């Protein structure tokens, strides 16, 4: 028997394989056993409904996909009412991703979400425009002060562990990671999508309705692994890795470089059983390598 349990703050996961926000939903319950996941992460919600970006929202690129969904969601009230029956039934950790325009919006949402009673952790989507600090072009997670403000506010309002989801679109992600840790974040999630763009040369038009979007998928994996590694060396809180994980080998690579848990995102779209295959693959790898505890993989890279 191998131990697959890991802890993220005070949240216990039965295994280190989570699904990424916005890439998984109850629809997949028809195909796989959701309770076998390490954690179910719900799509980002905001206080008020958001209509989302114009079509097209998806463009495939070499070993990756660009998206510009625009945080489409029906708002907290709808979420609390409509998703409760499903989320309450889940017999694994439930994480809810939240976003807002400023620290007070994040705080209000965190307080409401943690009062729902069935949520095990709050994931803070910091890839939102940094409205408050003036630079409307930047994201919260591109600014140490804004990151600190938001995480502090969320921590104050939340009774469950807080996970800061960082953007890779920065010069030095460890600075933002340290800011989030200083503000009291219980864990760091690396990373959201990379800024990207693609053009249809026949029509001369951008391939996304929003012109630019975020790149995910195997194309970004090596860049994220490097960020996980650099961050792991500098922080004391757990790092969760997310970026282009398609199979258990990718997941283990992330863990060897410092990830305590991982999230599967784009792979769900291609084969919804990806996360469960990854759990099985990690178990097989551990038996083959005679590793009894999955926690021993974290940071075990041989230099």
């Amino acid at each position, binding site marked *: 028997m191998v131990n697959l349990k890991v802890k993220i703050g005070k949240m216990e996961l039965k295994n280190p394989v989570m699904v990424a926000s*916005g*890439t*998984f*939903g109850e*629809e*997949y319950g*028809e*195909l796989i056993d959701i309770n076998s996941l390490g954690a179910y992460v719900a*799509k980002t919600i905001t206080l008020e409904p958001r*209509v*989302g*970006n*114009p*079509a*097209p*929202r*998806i*463009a*495939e690129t*070499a*070993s*990756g*996909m660009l*998206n510009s*969904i625009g945080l*489409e969601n029906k708002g907290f009230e709808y979420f609390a009412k409509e998703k409760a029956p499903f989320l309450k039934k889940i017999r694994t950790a439930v994480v809810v991703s939240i976003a807002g325009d400023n620290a007070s919006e994040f705080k209000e949402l965190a307080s409401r979400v943690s009062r729902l009673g069935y949520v095990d952790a709050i994931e803070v989507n910091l890839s939102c425009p940094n409205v408050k600090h003036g630079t409307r072009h930047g994201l919260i997670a591109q600014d140490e002060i804004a990151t600190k403000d938001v995480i502090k506010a969320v921590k104050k309002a939340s009774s469950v562990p807080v996970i800061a989801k960082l953007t890779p679109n920065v010069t030095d992600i460890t600075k933002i990671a340290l800011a989030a840790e200083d503000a009291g974040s219980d864990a760091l999630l690396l990373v959201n999508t990379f800024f990207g763009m693609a053009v249809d040369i026949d029509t001369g038009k951008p391939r996304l309705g929003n012109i630019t979007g975020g790149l995910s*998928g*195997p194309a970004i994996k090596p860049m994220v692994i490097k960020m996980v590694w650099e961050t792991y060396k500098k922080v004391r809180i757990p790092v969760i890795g997310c970026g282009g994980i*398609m199979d258990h080998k990718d997941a283990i690579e992330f863990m060897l470089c410092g990830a305590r848990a991982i999230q599967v995102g*784009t792979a*769900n*779209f*291609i*084969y*919804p*059983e990806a996360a469960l295959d990854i759990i099985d693959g990690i178990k097989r790898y551990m038996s083959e390598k005679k590793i009894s505890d999955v926690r021993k993989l974290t940071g075990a890279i041989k230099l």
Partner: protein
Amino acid sequence: MKNEKAKIISNKQIAPDFFKMTVASAYLAKTSKPGQFLEVRCSRELDPLLRRPLGIHRILKNGIEMLYEVVGKGTKILSQKRPDETVEILGPLGNGFILNPNRDAILIAGGIGVAPLLALAEKITDSAERTADRKKLTVIIGARSKSHINCESDFNKTGCKTIVCTDDGSKGKKGLVTDVLKGLFPRTQDLGSSTLIYACGPNPMLKAIWAMALEKEIPCQFSFESHMACGVGVCLGCPVKVRKGLIDFEYKMVCKDGPIFNAGEILW
């Protein structure tokens, strides 16, 4: 829905860039409805990455047929698959066409738009055979030129009236499907309560059909296409703008709320 590993029975080129693939799957044969679609994994490599959404062309006794156009890397790989290989298919997905046996039906296909309409024509004629009062079924197929006209004989076999038109006049009437449609509209008859239009094709074609249908108050069910990632309503990647109240709009998803939409819903 299931993620089926289905065996390929045949995969043939039927026109320049058009292929027809038949796969064995008792499950898909039993559960699929005309208008629904499938997410097909073209390759197990990382590039191309996403599945390709393909319409259900025909529902057979023990399998289904897909008609697809080779437009990029994914469909190119799909076109090279041989019989006896397996292909991973997620489906059936989305909602099918809604049939109304009390109305005459006009089916309008533009280019690859014939794909979901053959299954519909077969379903309509199948169920009509069992009702005494058989309604008229007319199919209009439009394309750029003769070589892009597909499935005319398949539609003819269902016993419907098939009218072909091409942009360049190389086959059938020269002109657009809307020109043909105009010719079908008698001046006096109350078409709004007796006829139903089903269409699949490029958006400008659908928009033009709707403009004409609206005048005659004919309800339309259109099948929409979109780039997609998940195909099941998870990623919200395939929006279509629909009316919300009198002045507002919202997005619905082609994969989950569609791919069949009532034309009146759409904010054109």
